[in-house]
C-alpha cells in the first residue's frame, strides 16, 4: 500500500541528463573543493546565524547538539555534492534528507529557501575566487545551480512521498477501525443477537456486516437476530437489496430475523423506491423487537416480586 520514494538507475541517469549535469560540471565543481574547504566554517556560521533568526527554525534546531549534528551532516552532504560522485548512495542520501525533514516537521518552504543561502554565499565567493577568469566563475556557478536544484527536488519529492505514506497509513488504519467499530454483533440474551446498523452503508461494509453476522450466528447458535436500523441515515435500493440478502442468508442458517427501527423517512423512501421487504418480520422499535424475540424463545420479562 505505501510505496517508498526511490530513484532507480535509469531515472538517475535521466535526471542528470535532463539537468545537463555531466563530466564538465563535475570537473568545475571539483575545482571548487579547495575554496569550499577554506570557507566552510565561515559559511556554516552565517547559514545557521540566519536560520536562528526565525522562531520556527529555532524550534526545530532546539539545542546546541542538534545544531552541531545538523551542521556536520550538512558539511558532509555538501562535500559529497562537490566531489562529483553522484551515484546511488548520493541519491539515497538526498532522499533520506527529505525523509528526515518530514520526521522533524521541517517544511519544504524552509528547505528550498535555505538552498538560496547556499547559492547566495557561494556565488559571491566563486566570483571572488575566479575573479581573473569570469567565464570559469560563471560555469562553476551554473554547475552549482544545477546541483542544488537536483538536491532540492530530491529532498522535496521524498518529503512529500513520506507525508503521503503517513497519510495513507492513517487512512488505512482508520478505515479498519471504522469497519470494526461499525459492525458490532451483540449477544443481548442467550439465543438473541442484535446488529445495530449505524451511518452510511456501502458495498464494502455490507459484505463485512453480512459475514460478521453469519459467523456470530453460527458461533452463538442464536435463534433470533434483530437488525436495528435506528442509526441508518440513508437507505437506497442497493442498501435495501443488501439487507434482504443478509436476512435471507441468516434465515438459511436457520435463525429468525427481525427488522427494527425503520424511521418514517426510511419507510417513505422504501415505498417510493418500490422495495418490498417481503416476509421479513418488522417491529417499530428495538424494544418491541426484543419483546417479540423473547416471546419466540418462550421467555417473558416480569417484575421481580417484593
Amino acid at each position, binding site marked *: 500500500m505505501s510505496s517508498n520514494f526511490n530513484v532507480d538507475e535509469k531515472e538517475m541517469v535521466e535526471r542528470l541528463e535532463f539537468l545537463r549535469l555531466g563530466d564538465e560540471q563535475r570537473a568545475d565543481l571539483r575545482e571548487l573543493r579547495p575554496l569550499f574547504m577554506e570557507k566552510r566554517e565561515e559559511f556554516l556560521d552565517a547559514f545557521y546565524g540566519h536560520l536562528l533568526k526565525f522562531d520556527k527554525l529555532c524550534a526545530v534546531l532546539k539545542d546546541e547538539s542538534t545544531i552541531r549534528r545538523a551542521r556536520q551532516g550538512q558539511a558532509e552532504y555538501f562535500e559529497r555534492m562537490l566531489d562529483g560522485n553522484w551515484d546511488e548512495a548520493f541519491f539515497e542520501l538526498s532522499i533520506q534528507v527529505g525523509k528526515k525533514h518530514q520526521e522533524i516537521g521541517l517544511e519544504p518552504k524552509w528547505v528550498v529557501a535555505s538552498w538560496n543561502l547556499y547559492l547566495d554565499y557561494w556565488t559571491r565567493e566563486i566570483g571572488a575566487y575566479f575573479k581573473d577568469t569570469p567565464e570559469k566563475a560563471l560555469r562553476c556557478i551554473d554547475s552549482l545551480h544545477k546541483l542544488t536544484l537536483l538536491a532540492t527536488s530530491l529532498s522535496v519529492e521524498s518529503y512529500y512521498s513520506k507525508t503521503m505514506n503517513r497519510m495513507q497509513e492513517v487512512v488505512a488504519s482508520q478505515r479498519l477501525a471504522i469497519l470494526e467499530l461499525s459492525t458490532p454483533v451483540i449477544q443481548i440474551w442467550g439465543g438473541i443477537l442484535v446488529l445495530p446498523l449505524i451511518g452510511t452503508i456501502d458495498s464494502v461494509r455490507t459484505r463485512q456486516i453480512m459475514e460478521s453476522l453469519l459467523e456470530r450466528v453460527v458461533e452463538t447458535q442464536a435463534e433470533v437476530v434483530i437488525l436495528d436500523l435506528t442509526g441508518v441515515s440513508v437507505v437506497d435500493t442497493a442498501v435495501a437489496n443488501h439487507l434482504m440478502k443478509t436476512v*435471507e442468508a441468516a434465515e438459511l442458517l436457520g435463525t429468525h430475523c427481525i427488522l427494527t427501527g425503520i424511521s418514517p423517512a426510511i419507510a417513505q423512501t422504501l415505498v417510493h423506491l418500490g422495495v418490498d421487504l417481503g416476509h421479513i418480520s418488522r417491529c417499530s422499535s428495538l424494544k418491541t423487537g426484543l419483546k417479540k424475540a423473547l416471546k419466540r424463545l418462550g421467555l417473558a420479562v416480569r417484575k421481580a416480586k417484593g
Partner: protein
Amino acid sequence: MARIPVLRLKNVLVVSLQVEMEDRVAIDLQEDILSTLARTGAGGLIVDVSGVEVVDSFLGRIIGDTARMASMMGANTVLVGIQPAVAITLTELGLVFSNVRTALNLEKGLALLKADLE
C-alpha cells in the same frame, strides 16, 4: 464411488453430508432419499450440511429440488447447519429455498419435526 447413508430415526430420515459433494454423488443421494421415503413413508427429512464448505449452483439446485420433491411426497424437510460462506453463495446465486425450513443444528432441526418423532 462414495455413497451417503440415509438413516432413519423413528419417522424421520436423517442425511448428513460430510464430504465435498461431487455431482454424481448428489444425484445418487437424491435417488436414495426419495426411494427410502417411498419405502418407509417417513414424515420428515433432515439434511445436515454442516460439513459442506462449498456449494455451486448445481448442488444448490439439487438440494432445493430434493426438498421440494420430498415435500410432494408428504415429508417436511429441514436443512440444518448451513455454513456462513454457503449461505452467502446461495443468496448471491438467488437460490433461496422458499418451502424448506432451516435450523442452526441437528437438535433444533429435530425439534421442528417433533410431531413426526412421536
